[in-house]
């Protein structure tokens, strides 16, 4: 059996990628004419098939470095050759399991959540298409194929954020996500083009890794070229993974249906930036400066987003800022050279954040669309399953010991202090600074998450209109499965030498990148930090209990009043959107108006486009006089032509 699977991993990979595409095509074309049950079957069946194939493929991969399969040569232009090839290695195996596994659960959940929506089949078609693009992103052997998937998931994200496009605000949110991502994509493209030149045409990741291994050429550790290329690529990652300064789109993206937020804007697509850095770890590791910037960006984003999350009142917005913050952790992990830890957190986060979003969806479903936590309260009694699963995930994200978030977050915190670049002049204060920010963010995380939990599920219902009720089984089953994952997923990466299955599994992928970092840590430091983060997590929870549930409930309002301007600044998300509006959007719009008026309307339309035809028409109106309709004049023209030709031909 294993031999059979082992020999057919390539075929399985195509099944993984094309099953969702087939689902998207079937539901996209035939959807409106199919019965709702058929749409659900196709829509949920496709990711389940992909998941089973992923699991088999991963099983078949075991023990090998990688498996590659080529369908055909996609582009062959001079030295540039891009094959349509898939590439399964331990990293992409983990990713496809996450994407298809959590994707299947969220598809199942969607059948309940989107039940009454008139565009049911369009929803599933887009969601399946997203899975296809995401799997292409993950499995693409060539960077170009990865980029195709990258753009594909961006497109699907746009389509699904603006799923209810008749609401103008939601359509605008989709557009914003798309445009902000374009900035990042510009960086990605730029970096990729430079790599094309360096690599003389090939963009295959393994070939790139070989070239970096060989060294020489442009691939010098600490080289300026490598630094610029990786910075450009990192710009792409900041766009996709919502890092400062391109984080502004993700909170707005919550306009989409909640399962979409869970799948795309929490579990999978937004982690693509982290995945890309991990995928190119050998390249990023060559540039210590870039790595320092990556780490600082991640830590700053984690802290910054957590502080906003503390004051938001929309249940999905809190979770959105929480996602930005957690993505900051992953980027921090990648930035300090702990690629395995970053991807580990990616995996655990996928479980608990998907669970949290789906729980939030369940709550919104129960509250008939209301998302304001100030109007909720006491839902725990009416929605026991939702409450239990939400609590498990909240504990996990807060970093309470023995749950998944604890292991992964702690790993990152520890490595932030422990790892140093083996070469390259990087200031010693960066590690401790990042650690401090990340630790502060951990405290805030525990606090705002439990604030959310207490306001939603404890106490008494503050809205008088809602009649909450538990969601159907199609929604609670995924919640339970995900909560189980949120509790247990951490055990694949226990911080004990021989039990750390995770590091062992991913070792072949990250060995090159990790080799450029040296560990100055010790077990004492590691276990000490565990104690610190346990204290921080519990402290945060206690603080939240005291402020929003316990004896100090009057304090938050007073503190807000005391902080005054600063409080409002945080509430307004530090007014980053307004800043961008002033420095980028308005000037661009002014520029667009000027170019439209003078370059387009006058220069091109009037002079270049309409000018020649007008001139031709003018000439034509003169020439057409010759065709006066008189057949004998025409006959004369024949003779004139004859005479001219004769005169020319006869010497």
């Amino acid at each position: 059996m294993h031999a059979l699977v082992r020999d057919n991993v390539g075929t399985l990979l195509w099944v993984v990628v094309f099953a969702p595409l087939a689902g998207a095509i079937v539901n996209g074309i035939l959807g409106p004419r199919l019965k709702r049950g058929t749409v659900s079957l196709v829509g949920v069946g496709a990711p389940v098939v992909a998941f089973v194939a992923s699991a088999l493929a991963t099983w078949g991969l075991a023990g090998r470095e990688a498996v590659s399969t080529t369908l055909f040569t996609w582009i062959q232009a001079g030295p540039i050759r891009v094959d349509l090839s898939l590439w399964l290695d331990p990293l992409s195996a983990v990713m496809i399991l996450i994407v298809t596994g959590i994707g299947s659960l969220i598809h199942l959940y969607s059948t309940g959540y989107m039940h009454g929506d008139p565009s049911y089949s369009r929803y599933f078609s887009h969601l399946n298409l997203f899975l296809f693009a995401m799997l292409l992103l993950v499995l693409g052997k060539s960077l170009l194929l990865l980029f195709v998937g990258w753009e594909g998931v961006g497109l699907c994200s746009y389509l699904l954020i603006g799923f209810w496009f008749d609401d103008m605000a939601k359509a605008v949110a989709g557009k914003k996500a798309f445009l902000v991502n374009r900035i990042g994509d510009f960086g990605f493209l730029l970096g990729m083009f430079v790599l094309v030149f360096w690599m003389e045409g090939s963009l295959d990741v393994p070939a790139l890794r070989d070239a970096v291994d060989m060294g020489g050429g442009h691939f010098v550790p600490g080289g300026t070229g490598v630094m610029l290329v990786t910075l450009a690529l990192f710009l792409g990652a900041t766009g996709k993974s919502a890092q400062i300064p391109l984080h502004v789109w993700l909170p707005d993206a919550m306009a989409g249906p909640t399962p979409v937020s869970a799948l795309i804007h929490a579990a999978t697509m937004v982690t693509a930036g982290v995945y890309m850095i991990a995928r190119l770890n050998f390249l990023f590791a060559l540039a210590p400066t870039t790595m320092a910037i990556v780490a600082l960006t991640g830590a700053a984003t984690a802290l910054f987003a957590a502080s906003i999350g503390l004051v938001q009142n929309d249940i999905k917005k809190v979770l959105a800022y929480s996602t930005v913050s957690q993505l900051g952790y992953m980027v921090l992990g990648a930035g300090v050279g702990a690629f395995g830890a970053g991807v580990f957190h990616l995996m655990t986060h996928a479980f608990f954040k998907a669970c949290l979003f789906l729980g939030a969806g369940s709550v919104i479903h129960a509250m008939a669309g209301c998302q304001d936590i100030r109007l909720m309260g006491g839902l725990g009694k009416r929605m026991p399953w939702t409450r239990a699963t939400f609590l498990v995930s909240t504990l996990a994200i807060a970093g309470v010991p023995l749950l998944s978030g604890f292991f992964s977050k702690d790993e990152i915190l520890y490595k932030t202090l422990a790892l140093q670049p083996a070469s390259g002049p990087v200031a010693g204060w960066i590690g401790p600074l990042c650690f401090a920010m990340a630790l502060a963010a951990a405290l805030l995380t525990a606090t705002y998450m439990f604030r959310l939990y207490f306001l939603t599920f404890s106490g008494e219902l503050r809205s008088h209109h809602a009649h909450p009720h538990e969601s159907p089984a199609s929604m609670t089953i995924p919640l339970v499965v995900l909560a189980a994952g949120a509790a247990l997923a951490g055990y694949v990466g226990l911080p004990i030498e021989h039990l750390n299955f995770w590091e062992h599994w991913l070792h072949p992928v990250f060995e090159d990148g990790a080799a450029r970092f040296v560990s100055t840590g010790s077990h004492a430091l590691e276990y000490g930090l565990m104690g610190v983060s346990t204290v921080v997590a519990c402290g945060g929870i206690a603080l939240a209990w005291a402020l929003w549930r316990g004896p100090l409930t009057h304090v938050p309002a007073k503190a807000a009043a005391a902080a005054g301007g600063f409080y409002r600044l945080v509430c307004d998300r530090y007014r980053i959107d307004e800043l961008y509006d002033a420095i980028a959007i308005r000037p661009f719009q002014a520029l667009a108006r000027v170019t439209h008026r003078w370059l387009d309307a006058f220069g091109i339309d009037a002079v270049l486009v309409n000018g020649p035809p007008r001139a031709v028409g003018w000439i034509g109106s003169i020439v057409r006089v010759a065709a006066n309709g008189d057949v004998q004049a025409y006959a004369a023209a024949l003779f004139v032509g004859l005479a001219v030709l004769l005169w020319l031909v006869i010497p």
Partner: protein
Amino acid sequence: MSGVPLSWWLVLATALFGIGALGVVTRRNALVVLMSLELMLNGVNVAFLAFARARGDSLAHAAVFIVMAVAAAEVAVGLALAIALFRHGGNVDLDRARRMKG
């Protein structure tokens, strides 16, 4: 005939062709234009026969017969068109056939 040089015959042929051509271009009456066309074809026939005579072969004779047959067919079509023109305005003046132009 044997005494007349080839060039004279060619001049005659060209003259017939030219007179016909002049008629086509200048005469307004469709019937006269039709006759002028026939005159041009007959000029060509003269040229054919003159060449055949000078070369002493009979190949062109066949050509001339074919041309005469074709000319007859052409006249038939031309007359039919002249009648159609007449039906639309009571005369066969080509000046009327200039409604489409430009």
